[in-house]
């Protein structure tokens, strides 16, 4: 019964989405059709906002229809003018095709982003959330939240700067080992060996497994008593007393070395992607370069240095960029390993601290400001990076 109800619920929603799309398309269609008529401007200014406000009222989105009416009036005026003076009825089809996707993006990506900026200048926390929910208004906080980001700790222990340093370190170590490991594996696999496809398939498994399963399973392996790693260490120490004398023994991974644990797990997760990308790049290098180098008498290392690495760069650079952004933004691994109640904070990086600040400590506005700061950092780094990338391209 539940199942039937759940299907009904989802289908009903799909129907609403469809109707919404039809509404949007119709709206734009008539703007395209009649934008130039003299009667259209006043008619649109009256008709559409009225209809929209009535719809809001009917759906129960707004108790007082005057405010949405004014809102829609303003936006309708802008849209009509836009059609009249900029679009002028051109490229009708292109805009009609784009409209649903971009309105979706505007509602669920751009609007939340702006909402986040709004939040960061106000004060939303556990004590004000009910007020916001009922009245929709919040106490204004100015740039206090931003000041707090740099002066107080997002969590209970670490400061912003410590988090930043840890994030950079985490990103660097992970990406470095991803590339190094991926490169090694790709070079090994790029030989003409048997079972190549089979090996490749098996090596991709950490990437292919659902991340939640992979991380949780690896977390189990780091368990101090029943995890594979400590079992092995205990056995090693038992078998070779010399090693035990050197300090080899069970390690409290999760409580004493959480960041190392997370890093090891994330390296394990990330190598296959790099391997596959680099292997693809290696296979696209024409073998005639190597033949020529062989005839010239180049050694293996020379070939690696002068042929493989320069030719793999165009493939590698985007992958490294992507990998850097992914690692920087990786909440999953850290939260899944340390996110339980009472979990440690010593493995947190910026984004996971952001998540915890919002949803473990309920400091909503604070975390909004925090998010904006991180975004600004990422944004400037990427702009700078893209610029230098373009410059490097032009040089060649």
């Amino acid at each position, binding site marked *: 019964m539940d199942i039937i109800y759940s299907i009904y619920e*989802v289908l009903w929603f799909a129907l609403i989405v469809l109707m919404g799309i039809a509404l949007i398309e119709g709206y734009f269609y008539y703007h395209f059709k009649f934008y130039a008529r003299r009667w259209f401007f006043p008619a649109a200014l009256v008709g559409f906002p009225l209809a929209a406000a009535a719809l809001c009222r009917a759906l129960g989105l707004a108790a007082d229809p005057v405010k949405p009416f004014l809102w829609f009036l303003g936006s309708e005026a802008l849209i009509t003018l836009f059609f009249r003076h*900029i679009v002028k009825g051109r490229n009708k*089809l292109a805009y009609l095709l784009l409209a*649903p996707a971009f309105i979706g993006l505007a*509602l669920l990506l751009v609007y939340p982003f702006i909402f986040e900026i709004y939040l960061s200048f106000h004060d939303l926390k556990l004590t004000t959330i009910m007020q916001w929910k009922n009245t929709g208004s919040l106490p204004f906080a100015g740039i206090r939240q931003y000041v707090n980001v740099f002066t107080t700790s997002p969590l209970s222990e670490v400061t912003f700067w410590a988090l930043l340093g840890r994030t950079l370190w985490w990103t660097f170590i992970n990406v470095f080992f991803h590339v190094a490991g991926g490169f090694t594996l790709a070079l090994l696999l790029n030989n003409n060996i048997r079972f190549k496809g089979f090996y490749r398939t*098996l090596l991709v498994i950490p990437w*292919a497994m659902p991340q939640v399963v992979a991380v*949780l399973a690896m977390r189990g392996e780091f368990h101090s008593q029943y995890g594979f790693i400590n079992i092995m260490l205990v056995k090693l120490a038992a078998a070779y007393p010399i090693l035990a004398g050197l300090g080899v023994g069970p390690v409290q991974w999760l409580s004493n070395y959480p960041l190392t644990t997370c890093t090891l797990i994330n390296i394990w997760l990330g190598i296959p992607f790099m391997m596959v990308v680099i292997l693809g790049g290696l296979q696209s290098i024409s073998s005639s370069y190597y033949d020529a180098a062989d005839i010239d008498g180049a050694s293996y290392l020379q070939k690696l240095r002068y042929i493989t690495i320069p030719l793999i760069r165009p493939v590698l650079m985007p992958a490294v960029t992507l990998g850097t952004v992914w690692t*920087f*933004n990786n909440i999953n691994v850290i939260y899944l390993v340390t996110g339980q109640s009472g979990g440690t904070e010593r493995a947190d990086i910026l984004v996971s601290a952001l998540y915890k600040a919002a949803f473990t400590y309920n400091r909503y506005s604070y975390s909004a400001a925090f998010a904006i700061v991180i975004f600004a950092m990422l944004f400037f780094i990427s702009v700078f990076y893209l610029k230098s990338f373009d410059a490097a391209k032009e040089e060649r």
Partner: protein
Amino acid sequence: MNKEAAVYRRKKIVKYLLIHLAIIAFVVVCVYPLLRILSVSMRPGDKLISTDLSLIPAGAAFDAYVRLLKETLFLRWLWNSLLITVATSFIGVSLASTAAYAFSRFRFAGKKGGLILLLSTQMIPAGMLILPLFLMIMKLGLMNTYLGMIIAYSVSSLPFSIWILKGYYDTIPRSLEEAALVDGTSQVGAFWRIILPLSTPALSIAFLFNFTTAWNEYLVARVVLFSSKQYTWTLGLFELQGQYITQWGMFAAGSMLVTIPVLIVFLYSSKWLISGLTLGSVKG
């Protein structure tokens, strides 16, 4: 002469042997955790916690699977995940397919701006929008519902899907649509009858990408869903693994059930996914 050849051959054999050994070592590291889950999932109920490392435990049984299905809401969780995922993928792919067509075939004011907007959305840190989405969902009264989840997920993969599809459409010669126009379709008709059927590979990849992202999502689900009846499987497994070490076996069994279909689909489609990933990033 012959001696030199023999030395050369021996060197070669040693080299290949070393390569195989190195790769096998890596393979073991990659596969072993998965095998461990399998082995734990088949441990008999009384030996769940042990320091035993053998892959096939003594007295292997399917107790954990039976208990998982009987005592927990695992099937329900799977069903929830499936419903949310399929709905978001359908919405995402259908929105992306038309938008990508516009980007691929038309010149219009704002095209470049639109593409830049798509790329810059990729710069937004993943965790950043969870908070405003959470607040929006709360305000709409959709906490703990499928709809809230679908709304939160539906556009998250949209920019990437548009990139993949645009790249694919770009490879379809325009003359096909022109021929269709001459044959008597409208522009939309040409898209519907010619381009869409030809793009099934790219559409299915975009669908798979949407599907896997939503299927494996954890962070949004964590904050939107709070009753265990509405949980997705990721939340369910986290709970199984987190709280009581006694449920280790059930966690392993659940992991196996979720992982195997995902693995099969992934291995089948990985080639496509990768080309899509690199395509999107190279152009960006």
